[in-house]
């Protein structure tokens, strides 16, 4: 079955984002080849897209153009996607599963009177429509869902598909924006860098990371002692820093620090994807978790299934007495 698929392409300082190339690949597979892929790029002025048609390897590039689209907004981009969806006749719309997609996908879906399939890692057509593989329970399980009908709206997880090689778009169409600046309910004021942290986790050879399963800040000393015995520093999952058990600078993951130490010890951390992306570059990973199904074991070299409050002091002791 071959059907037209639309992706929302995103721009960055260096052209088109990696996430967009992954969407192009996912769309190309779903459409039975790149010719069946349309890519929408919202722009304030079409001249901004100069050069991009040479690299946006889609069947057609749709530039939705107007002052309302000069900066990204949830409702502006949703209007652009819906407009391009109609113009292309696409039966499936792919968006990134990231802060852009979280803003735009549900608004697009609502206007199409449907729900989106989100956090998707694989897609296929079956007799009765589109089937998507997605993550549920914070990555603990994978789920297959049937999209409710066409057009379908999908957000695609980063890294689920290889990035497509840049190449020219076969054709370009410029569509006037269906919305003007006064129609928008949201406005981008600015984009800022968040305050940089003081502790340099990234330089450490050993990181011992504390997770919510430790139960409370009163139990963090055992983690500090293990870190000291290993000559390392303490890091944390977001659940731990959000709860105020440790400062935000120690957070590891997609919205925190990215570390690649020689040794990473995950203590009572479940291993949600947003945590894993921050520590995947570690040379050797140890996980201590009482749940044998915790996703962290899929990212670890060695694991101990057990109560961290009991196991961690034993590991500290074993390290000390091994000298």
């Amino acid at each position, binding site marked *: 079955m071959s059907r037209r698929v639309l992706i929302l392409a995103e721009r960055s300082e260096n052209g088109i984002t990696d996430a967009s190339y992954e969407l192009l690949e996912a769309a190309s597979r779903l459409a039975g080849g790149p010719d069946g892929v349309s890519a929408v790029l919202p722009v304030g002025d079409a001249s901004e897209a100069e050069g991009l048609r040479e690299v946006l390897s889609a069947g057609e590039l749709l530039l939705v153009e107007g002052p309302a689209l000069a900066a990204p907004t949830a409702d502006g981009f949703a209007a652009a996607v819906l407009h391009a969806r109609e113009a292309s006749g696409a039966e499936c719309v792919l968006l990134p599963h990231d802060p852009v997609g979280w803003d735009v996908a549900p608004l697009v879906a609502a206007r199409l009177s449907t729900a989106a399939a989100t956090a998707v890692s694989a897609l296929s057509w079956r007799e009765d429509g589109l089937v998507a593989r997605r993550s549920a329970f914070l990555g603990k399980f994978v789920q297959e869902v049937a999209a409710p009908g066409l057009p379908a709206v999908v957000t695609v997880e980063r890294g689920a598909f290889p990035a497509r090689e840049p190449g020219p778009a076969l054709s370009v169409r410029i569509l006037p924006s269906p919305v003007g600046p006064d129609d928008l309910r949201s406005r981008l004021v600015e984009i800022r860098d968040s305050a940089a942290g003081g502790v340099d986790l990234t330089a450490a050879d050993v990181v011992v990371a504390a997770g919510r399963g430790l139960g409370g800040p009163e139990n963090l000393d055992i983690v500090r002692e293990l870190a000291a015995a290993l000559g390392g520093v303490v890091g944390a999952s977001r659940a731990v820093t959000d709860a105020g058990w440790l400062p935000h600078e120690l957070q590891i993951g997609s919205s925190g620090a990215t570390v690649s130490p020689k040794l990473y010890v995950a203590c009572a951390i479940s291993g949600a994807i947003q945590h894993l992306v921050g520590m995947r570059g570690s040379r050797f990973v140890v996980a201590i978790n009482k749940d044998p199904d915790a996703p962290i074991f899929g990212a670890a070299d060695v694991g101990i299934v057990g109560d961290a409050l009991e*196991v961690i002091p034993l590991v500290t002791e074993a390290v000390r007495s091994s000298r």
Partner: protein
Amino acid sequence: MNAVALVKQVPDRNSAFRPAGDWIDESSLGYGINDYDRYAVEAALALKEAGHAAETVAVTAGPADAGQVLRSCLAMGVDRGVHLITDRAHLADPFFVARALADAVSGLDAGVVTAGLLAEDSGHGQVGGLVAGLLRYSFASAATGLHFRDGRLEVHRELEGGRIAVVELRLPAVVAVQTGINTPRYASLRGIMASRRKPVERVELAAPADGGELRRLTLGRPERGASAEILPGSPQEAAAALVPRMRTGAGISFPGDAP
């Protein structure tokens, strides 16, 4: 105008989940409020305390026992609750849920509607946005800050790579909040006592029409490429076996090691 929080009842995070058919076995699970939604409730309470909302209302769609999460919101200080009663199985389709929530919200004189960024069980990350889309309210996801500045709602959104987008929204607006946006309060004993006298409106939802919904097909454990070697034996034995593996695997020596 009121501040409305959307709250979902989800299985306790620390339960032993087992896949069963197209979902998990729910026969012996405890339930509580979705973690993200505690932050949504706190944000709504803070808006009222800062004088930007007359009343706070918590809304949930779920089975009869989901009334429990509304009670915990009332105990935190929310003024009243709306319980849209439906089978747990009907929560499978985010569009059905969002339409029911949107209908309820449309009658609540909402200025700001807060939702969680995602539900810990289904993890769609879209119900707040669907409600906004259906009602044509403004929308911002992944909020890590929420303030009124010169009478306008300013939202900080967490982007990737440690950047923050500052956006301004017209009211009414739906904001899907990230954890850490605030520090959710705990219910005080007084709050718990007072919550018993607070009103909860109950509405029975009609079952969703057949077809057209997002359908669950299967649920299973992810297949893992290379999985961890799980160290067997007692905790003492496992700890002892771990140390040499850490040394060789990481290729480092530990403080105090002989050079």
